[in-house]
């Protein structure tokens, strides 16, 4: 690209910046929408389940069974309906009123005292796998706590029938907000990078200004840089805003380095911007551009990034697809940087992937864009 002119470049840059400031929709997408998303993910969406309605069927009325009952009713995770009537609880379970039923069988305390295998029965509604798992796990947890207590109080020597050793690292309270908020940064940057860029370029095509601009001596490189740089800074600005909200409003811990976060964000933004650019070379109407941007940019950021849906639990073809989209790498780095700290083993491979895919997109869009209309 010969004859790069700073005068033309700055003229275009200035024009783009004025438009960003004047256009309310840009502010909306770059600052208001992220705040709304942060708000939804921070307060509205929670993947933690508490107050799960369960039934507790008591067939054993001994003091130890009573004490176990108290342990179940005492936990905030469950909303317990105690009953002696098995049929009623089972009916409620089938009707979906209860997520599960915990049965303390007749021989529970006898077995416990005898030191033989004492068992609890837990019935769960498998048609809703997530809450079912929660009920199972929480029930185990309650039982574990209860037996621990028992050991301390009675100093009995009998061996415990169950030995659950679950421990949660990094997010000890398993607060989903702490994962969701960093993850939503990836969505927000995708929105700005892909959607906004694709839209503003499509708008220039629609209004015929691109045609007028292209007929001037301006070079493609000047248009590209003049377009990308303002949106790059807009993206960074939005990132800073969201980061402040995450740290100061939601108290999400930040254990990594800001420098690395800045670096990764920049690279992610460049990849996203190039993707937006590529879309705009293919779709010249704002309607089509926004559809494409949402399908290839926004949805993968939500569904294929490991932000809400765990990638390792996806079927392998889908897992393979996630490698093609940038958000998964970025989300990995974000989660690590927020919750763990600087773990080079995670950061370096993800960063490399970001750089490679970003470079491919940038290269593709540069190849596609020529100063011609067809």
């Amino acid at each position, binding site marked *: 690209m010969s004859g790069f002119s700073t005068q033309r470049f700055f003229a275009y840059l200035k024009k783009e910046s004025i438009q960003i400031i004047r256009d309310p929709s840009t502010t909306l997408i770059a600052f208001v929408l992220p705040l709304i998303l942060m708000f939804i993910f921070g307060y509205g969406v929670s993947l933690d389940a508490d107050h799960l309605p369960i039934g507790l069927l008591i067939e054993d009325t001994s003091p130890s069974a009573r004490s176990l009952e108290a342990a179940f009713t005492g936990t905030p995770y469950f909303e317990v309906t105690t009953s002696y009537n098995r049929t009623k609880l089972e009916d409620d379970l089938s009707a979906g009123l209860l997520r599960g039923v915990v049965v303390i069988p007749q021989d529970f305390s006898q077995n416990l005292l005898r030191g033989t295998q004492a068992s609890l029965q837990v019935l769960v509604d498998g048609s809703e796998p997530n809450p079912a798992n929660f009920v199972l796990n929480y029930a185990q947890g309650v039982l574990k706590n209860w037996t621990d207590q028992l050991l301390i109080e009675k100093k009995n020597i009998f061996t415990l029938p169950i030995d659950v050793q679950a421990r949660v690292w990094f997010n000890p309270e398993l607060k989903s907000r702490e994962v969701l908020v960093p993850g939503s940064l990836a969505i927000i940057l995708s929105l700005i990078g892909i959607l906004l860029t694709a839209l503003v370029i499509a708008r220039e095509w629609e209004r015929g*200004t691109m*045609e007028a601009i292209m*007929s*001037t001596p301006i070079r493609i490189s000047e248009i590209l840089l003049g377009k990308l740089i303002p949106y790059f800074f807009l993206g960074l600005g939005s990132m800073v805003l969201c980061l402040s909200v995450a740290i100061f409003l939601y108290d999400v811990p930040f254990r990594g380095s800001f420098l690395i976060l800045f670096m990764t964000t920049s690279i992610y933004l460049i990849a996203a911007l190039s993707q937006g650019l590529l879309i705009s070379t293919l779709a010249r109407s704002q309607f089509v551009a926004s559809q494409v941007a949402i399908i290839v940019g926004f949805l993968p950021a939500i569904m294929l990034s490991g932000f809400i849906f765990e990638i390792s639990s996806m079927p392998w073809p889908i897992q393979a697809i996630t490698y093609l989209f940038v958000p998964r790498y970025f989300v990995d780095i974000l989660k690590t940087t927020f919750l763990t700290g600087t773990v080079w083993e995670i950061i370096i491979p993800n960063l490399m992937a970001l750089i490679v895919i970003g470079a491919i997109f940038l290269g593709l869009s540069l190849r596609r864009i020529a100063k011609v209309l067809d």
Partner: protein
Amino acid sequence: MGSSVENAIEITGVTKTFSGMTQPALDNITANIHKGIITGIVGPDAAGKTTLIRLMTSLLLPTSGEITVLGLNTLKDSDAIHDITGYMPQKFGLYEDLTVIENLNLYGDLQGLKGHEKEEAFEQMLSFTSLKPFTDRLAGKLSGGMKQKLGLACALLSRPKILLLDEPTVGVDPISRRELWKMMKVLLGQGMSIVWSTSYLDEASQCHEVLLLNEGKLLFNGPPSELTKIVDGRVFLLDVPEKGRRTALSNLLNTKGITDGVLQGNKIRIVCKPDFSIQSQEYPWTPAVPRFEDAFVDTLGGGPGGTSLLANSIPKKGKTHIAPIQTEHLTKMFGDFTAASDISFTIRRGEIFGLLGPNGAGKSTTFKMLCGLLQPTKGKALVSGHDLKTATSQARSQIGYMAQKFSLYSDLGVKENLDFFSGVYGLRGNFRKKRIDLMIEIFALESYLSSNSGLLPLGYKQRLALACAVMHDPDVLFLDEPTSGVDPITRREFWTHINGMAEKGITIMVTTHFMEEAEYCDRIALIYQSKNIATGTPDDLKESVKSKDLPNPTLEDAFITLIERSDMHNNEAHV
């Protein structure tokens, strides 16, 4: 190279085919565009005008053949071409959220103007376009005419050797159009070469040379007078009685030896074959100066006949004393902006009534109130005696409406559009099927039944849109800019139907900015700055502006003079 270049632009065997299209947009075009003159690229919509101009700017590249601009090949030297040309695309290429001066600054910088050179160019352009008082206004808030001037100013900043304008007068009223032509004359005086594309054939005759395009083919290349010469001595104006002028036109068009005919006020303009003897005419006649359009239609083999199958299929409407359309002090306010103010007129049965006026004058607002799409703020609009405020559905069932740009569902097929609109208008059962079949037969849509209507040739789109609007046999037909951009043959065919329907007693209301189209109207209301400033027959309006300077005014002259008078009157009132 360079020194030997005689022509501004040389086009050699250029064909342009877009992917997905079966026919080339431009088919083997060879032409030279000379230096220092205005060359018009003339033709109806979809003729290939825009494609040709974009090829000249090297924003498109030819599929085969080549174009050189002052010796520079568009394939290789696009940067150099952009340095020496100024280009104003359709819609003027302005950033609407930037002010006038910001737009100028942007284009000035892009064209590499520096320091005082830039200031000087701005100063010159602002006074040239009289935009100086508006430098801080957002471009989006300018009127159509002012946008056009600003677009032109941006294209002219670097003093290009060649100025390329793509349909600069679309959406611009006749006054601004005249000003643009004046500015072009000034630029020519400075040695610039100008290429100007237009679908208005009357603009062609003002160009020094034209390239006449139709469906991608070059029909003619040369001075317009050379084309009009072919119909020399074959164009006549016939004096017909006012009452029967439409029947007379229909008969004349069906006469062997007459290739074309249009209404022109109370006269009929005809083009005859060379061997036709005008002496045999029953009406008094005078020879007329041939126009570009006469020659164009003649080149294409003449216009359609004068019989409308559509009109023939319609029973004559019975007589009533109720006026089909009547407005009383119709007023529409948007906030504190008055879009239409105190508009009153009564339209007779079988009358063709035109609303004429510059963009933004209020004609669309008036029109929309009449077909019940907008509620008037004050006053009344009656259709066949039904008040549109209270009896909307009765009133609407009498109305056929054809919106601007033919409001068809472009993703639906021809048959599907007909089905849909017949359903919307409440046609049922056997009758519905019969009407649809009739429309297909009348408009010869048979071979297109399953095609997407978005992909139809423009002429067929227009036929289909008309079919959809008249299927339910309305008493009143509203046409919003019905023939914008269509070729003259299609326009004639369209007006044959409209004339025929008017003869059968259907009342027709039409908005237009085409003067030729306005000539077909029985009466015209001229709307300007939300007011009805003049009503009358086309001849009345022409008569009212006749003066020593304008002994033989055209309808466009009348339009401009009446508006200027209204402005003068307003200024006096303010002083």
